[in-house]
């Protein structure tokens, strides 16, 4: 599995769902189950982090002679 920290939300929550299904299906021994559980909890925390620590960018992009250029966009509330 990719390093959890680098996973996007969608990838993470999909992986999380997979793990839950795997656990629910049974057939794993206790050690394997605990490993899956551990990873699943990590993924869940990662998802939560993405949700709660949003530092989103609001930018505009423009075509210039040197190709597309992005700059921050100010939106007055």
């Amino acid at each position, binding site marked *: 599995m990719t390093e959890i920290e680098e996973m996007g939300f969608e990838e993470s929550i999909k992986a999380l769902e997979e793990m839950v299904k795997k656990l629910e299906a049974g057939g794993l021994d206790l050690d394997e189950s605990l490993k899956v*559980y551990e990873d699943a909890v990590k993924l*869940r925390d990662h998802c939560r982090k993405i949700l709660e620590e949003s530092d989103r960018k609001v930018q505009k992009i423009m075509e210039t002679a040197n190709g597309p250029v992005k700059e921050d966009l100010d939106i*007055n509330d």
Partner: protein
Amino acid sequence: MEDTITVTQLNTRVKSLISDAPGVSDVWVTGEISNFKTYPSGHCYFTMKDSGSEIRCVMFRSARARIDFQPADSMQVAVFGGVDMYVERGSYQFIVQTMRKGGIGDRYAELEKLKKKLEAEGLFDIKKKRKLPTYPKVIGVVTSEAGAVIHDIVTTSGRRFPADILLAPAQVQGEGASRSIAAGIDLLNRAGVDVIIVGRGGGSIEDLWAFNEEETVRAIAASRVPTISAVGHESDFTLADLVADVRAATPTAAAELALRDGKEVLKQLDEETRRLNRSLSYLTDRMRSRFQVIDAKLSPKRAEEMVAMKSMTLDRLSERLITALRAPIETVRRRLTVAETKIERIPETMIPPRKASLDALADRLESLNPNNVLRRGYSMVTNEKGNALTSVSTIKKGTVISVRMRDGVADAEIKEVRKYDRD
């Protein structure tokens, strides 16, 4: 007393009435041009008319500069602007802000033709509609940088699942708008956004016309990224709405469609967590019960039970053994009794052969009697106690011995002892 007002006052009142009146400003008006004149100042004066009525129109130089064709008499046009009172002349006129060739009627006919053409190409095919990404990382927006649209989208998305916003500023009305929109869509596709919102705020159907133009529609259809149209016009669908993967009524709705509610996502996470814990506790329960089964088998109590069980089995077995053996033993005992009875009845005639052999044995015993040897001329030497002497080593000079012969005993004293060399 009646109030008296001046002509100027009257016309000024009318002017303010007109300027406050609904429906006569910011409207598109279609008709035919007549008496078109351009003055040296650059302002244009003409009359707009249809079969039933006419109105004087003024298009100032700044407005004239915005249109890229030469208006002329008899031309069917649509003009945008509002009615204003010309106080000095006591007449009212239409102030034209912009002008398009062709009346709205013509444009609808053209639109219908274009719609049929694109429909035949399958651009509006419902099967072509793509699903929006569930968790987009970057939302592209093609709209005017100045309008309320980008503001609404940024504000709304701030309350939703976190995503970056990337605006491709575009001209959304007037000449060149569709080219600008198409360029924005292409630019965002290259920039790698996850979904594109194309739109503008509400306005008249004329304002939204760029979203009915072929260039815009084809650009949306060509987008590799799923698209949401957000053309703020509830009653009319533009072609952009038909071709986009999803249609939103307003920019705010578009942002809500693009991004899930953060709270809902959290709820889903909680649900996953619940399922996770449930399956783990199910697993541990199962492990525990399996362990209990094994543990019970290993417990001392269980061991006692097992020993008891085994000994019960043993008891049963030995009982069966005894039962099984009882019959043969009885048989053997019966046969033994019969045999004893038979032995008691053995006749005397079977005894003589045994007596004869007994006599033979007595003869053989008699032949071993030492007295018989003495009779044949041998003597037996004993010590005083009567024990036979068989070796010279037990006697020495002076030892008193007895010599027993056939008919008596002679005591003697040893004079000398000579031992044979060979022993």
